[in-house]
């Protein structure tokens, strides 16, 4: 059931991978929402009021209550609109535990290694971060094999929790690939994930909210001077 306009609002910014996550979740559930774009470098009153602890995007506003932290928002959307679309987390408690674990790992270990490639000041540091990122992707490749059970996504036939967690970073992964000449999602190293990445980005719930790589590159150059 689509929400009335104004009932659901998402505070975010188009380049943020963390903001992408709830957008995909809301799209999967067919929820209409108002997207409140924050200005880069400035935090709105509404943001500061809605997320006083971290003052960060994304923040979901639903019935004037605020939900913060991207994967917490995803899980909230899954629960609040349980009767719409597909379940984002699987029903089985053990599979849920696996999805939650891998989403944690992705943010806790994998993202820093990917980001480390971009931040690296020497070729050595860059190579080291790249090795860590590839090693992480190898683990995720195995996880994909186990969780997908031969289907298209970590969630099986449908986009699930881990798909959203990892998929959100693909836009920036492409930017890093272009900036460094390194291939992160390499068909030779992680063939299943390379295919999954294309599939995820092409999905209708993802396509319209994924920024173009050129736009992200421009944004990176403008704001991070790289």
């Amino acid at each position, binding site marked *: 059931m689509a929400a009335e306009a104004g009932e659901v609002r998402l505070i975010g910014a188009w380049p943020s991978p963390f903001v992408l996550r709830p957008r995909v979740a809301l799209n999967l559930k067919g929820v209409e929402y108002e997207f409140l774009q924050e200005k880069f470098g400035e935090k709105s009153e509404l943001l500061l009021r809605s997320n*006083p*602890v971290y003052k960060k995007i994304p923040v979901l506003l*639903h019935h004037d*209550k605020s*939900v*913060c*932290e991207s994967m*917490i*928002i995803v*899980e*909230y959307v*899954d*629960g*609040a609109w*349980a009767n719409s679309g597909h379940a984002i987390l699987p029903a089985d*408690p*053990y599979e*849920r*535990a696996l999805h*939650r*674990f891998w989403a*944690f*790992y992705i943010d806790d*270990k994998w993202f820093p290694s990917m980001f480390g490639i971009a931040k690296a000041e020497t070729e050595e540091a860059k190579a080291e971060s790249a090795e860590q990122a590839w090693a992480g992707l190898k*683990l995720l490749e195995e996880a994909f094999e186990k969780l997908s059970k031969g289907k298209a996504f970590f969630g099986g036939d449908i986009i699930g929790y881990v798909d959203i967690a990892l998929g959100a970073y693909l836009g920036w992964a492409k930017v890093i690939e272009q900036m460094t000449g390194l291939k992160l999602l390499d068909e030779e190293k992680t063939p299943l994930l390379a295919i999954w990445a294309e599939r995820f980005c092409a999905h209708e719930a993802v396509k319209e909210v994924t920024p173009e790589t050129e736009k992200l590159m421009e944004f990176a150059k403008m704001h991070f001077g790289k």
Partner: protein
Amino acid sequence: MDQSSSLKFLGSWADSHTHRVRLALKLKGLVFEYQEEDSVNPSPALLLHNPIYKKVPALLHDGRPVVESLVILQYIDETWTDDPIMHADPFERAIVRFWCHFADDKLGPAVGLVFSSAGEGQKAAVDQVHENLKLLERELRDGAFKGRRFFGGDNIGLLDIVLGCGSYWLAVFEEVMEVKLVDPDTFPLFHAWLRDFEEQKEVKETIPPIDKLLEHARGIRQMMLSLSTDTTTATTIGAPATGSTTSNNDAAVEEIGLLQESLVL
């Protein structure tokens, strides 16, 4: 409670994340086998079941491993559905998850930093802890948890377990470091909640005696101080092996790092 499956749980006696899992298992009335792990020397079983993080706690349910304490707690709640530790309401769950994240992301590390630093660095860490406790106090007074006995309502819930198993370090560090962390006048609701929590039967059966925790903390602090004589300008003593140290100290520093991690709230 009918339990036809087997539960084994790998933990360390002084580790707060281990206590979280033990408390949850007790609250659910579950029977389990426990294996004590040395945080510095993980057993082959731990390396097998938690190859990525190589840390406790790890829960084995009919041989299948679940790791990461928050993942384990939710797994326990969703598998054994009597006496729930999470509300059914999605917004309530989101609020609880948010503050659990806060506990692990902000409060815990700030408390850990009080322990591992000295001088100006420690003063800053103590201020951080106070700032974080203020946020919780406000939530108890005017926010999401207003009027509740426990964060979970009338009964202990997920957030009580997460905050409670580790808050005893506040008292321990207050004594070992001679700093004031939880002033009952500044944080009356948090203080009252903590005392109530610690009085609960299952909690008393889970948390080790305070004198053992004191002894443990003092031991680690001593090790850190004896290493810091070479790095007198460092405000973080005995930083984990990623910091720069002489090669002689690397093993000792790594050990302290692992021990310190096990103390994080």
